[in-house]
């Protein structure tokens, strides 16, 4: 039986797809058979971040409407074994995602995979609700910024009331990933700190991903940032995968780098 993990946030542009891509890639790199599904019907983007946009023939909605089978629609990653992508439809609207249809596809995938990562669209409409409904666990991606934190809190409310697990009286296990973190600005008192966000949202912290130019480079080249060994963001994702799988890994990149003597003299 696969574990179903939804990557969600409420707010757009905080790094859901970046996180989904890197999280799924990281799990697969460690030998777990993983599929990552784009739930953003009509605005698919995961295929671009995963670098498989030219190989999409059939998509999630095709499988739901039985126009194709799963085998035809699953795109096997060329770099990483055990990693598969299920793209969203570009043309249909979100009503194409029916609860019964999504449930059937997830069940079929469950037989074959260890992890199913559901990349939720922004907002709290149908597509987002469908991505959340069947989840066993949720990764809430948040930026250290007021609107993002507020939306994350809303999403947490939905996770605890409108999911299959909630209906059965069970909990969806929640994880927080704080992205676009700038320790220097936190130190200046200009940005909410990890501790602030953890205190407000009150869910366990899985990882902190520092703001990094590598994320744009990664999406430019269709290579999940976790595969960039030199990148701090990539390292942060690698750390949080290990942490997710039970290793005790300290959080890096949460402290501002120490400035050299000269910089301290010139700067502040």
């Amino acid at each position, binding site marked *: 039986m696969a574990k179903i993990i939804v990557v969600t946030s409420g707010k757009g542009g905080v790094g859901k797809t970046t996180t989904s891509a890197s999280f799924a890639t990281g799990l697969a790199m460690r030998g777990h058979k993983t599929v990552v599904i784009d739930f953003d019907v009509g605005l698919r983007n995961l295929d671009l971040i995963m670098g498989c946009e030219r190989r999409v023939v059939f998509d999630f909605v095709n499988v739901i409407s039985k126009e194709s089978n799963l085998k035809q629609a699953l795109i096997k990653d060329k770099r990483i074994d055990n990693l598969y992508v299920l793209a969203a439809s570009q043309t249909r609207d979100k009503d194409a995602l029916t609860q019964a249809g999504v449930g059937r596809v997830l069940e079929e995938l469950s037989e074959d995979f260890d992890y199913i990562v559901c990349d939720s669209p922004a907002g709290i409409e149908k597509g987002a609700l469908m991505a959340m409904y069947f989840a066993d666990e949720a990764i809430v991606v948040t930026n250290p910024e*007021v609107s993002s*934190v507020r939306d994350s809190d809303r999403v947490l409310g939905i996770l605890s009331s409108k999911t299959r697990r909630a209906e059965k009286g069970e909990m969806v296990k929640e994880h927080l990933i704080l992205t676009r973190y700038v320790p220097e600005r*936190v130190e*200046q*008192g200009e940005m*909410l700190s990890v501790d*602030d966000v953890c205190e407000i949202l009150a869910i366990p912290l899985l990882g902190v991903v520092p703001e990094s130019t590598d994320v744009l480079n990664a999406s430019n080249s269709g290579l999940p940032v976790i595969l960039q060994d030199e990148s701090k963001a990539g390292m942060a994702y690698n750390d949080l995968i290990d942490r997710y799988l039970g290793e005790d890994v300290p959080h890096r990149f949460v402290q501002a780098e120490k400035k050299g003597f000269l910089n301290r003299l010139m700067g502040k």
Partner: protein
Amino acid sequence: MDWLKLFRGEQKKGSASLAKERLQVIVAHQRHVGQDHPDYFPKLQKDLLRVIRKYVQVNDDAVNIGIERDGEYEVLELNITLPEGK
């Protein structure tokens, strides 16, 4: 600029603490109001308003309903603000 600050010993108070305070208020409110109200809440609110208006003229926002959880019980909380001097 930085040098001046250094000499004046000025420590700029960041906006992050303000962000945190505002969020704590919002989140507490959000959780109190909750998103898991039954679907009939808006209608109930409207009906109550109509009944009350048979007797007293009140504003649209005079009726406030919420659900409070108290252990195993759920309590329907109803707050009606009557106009002054009536």
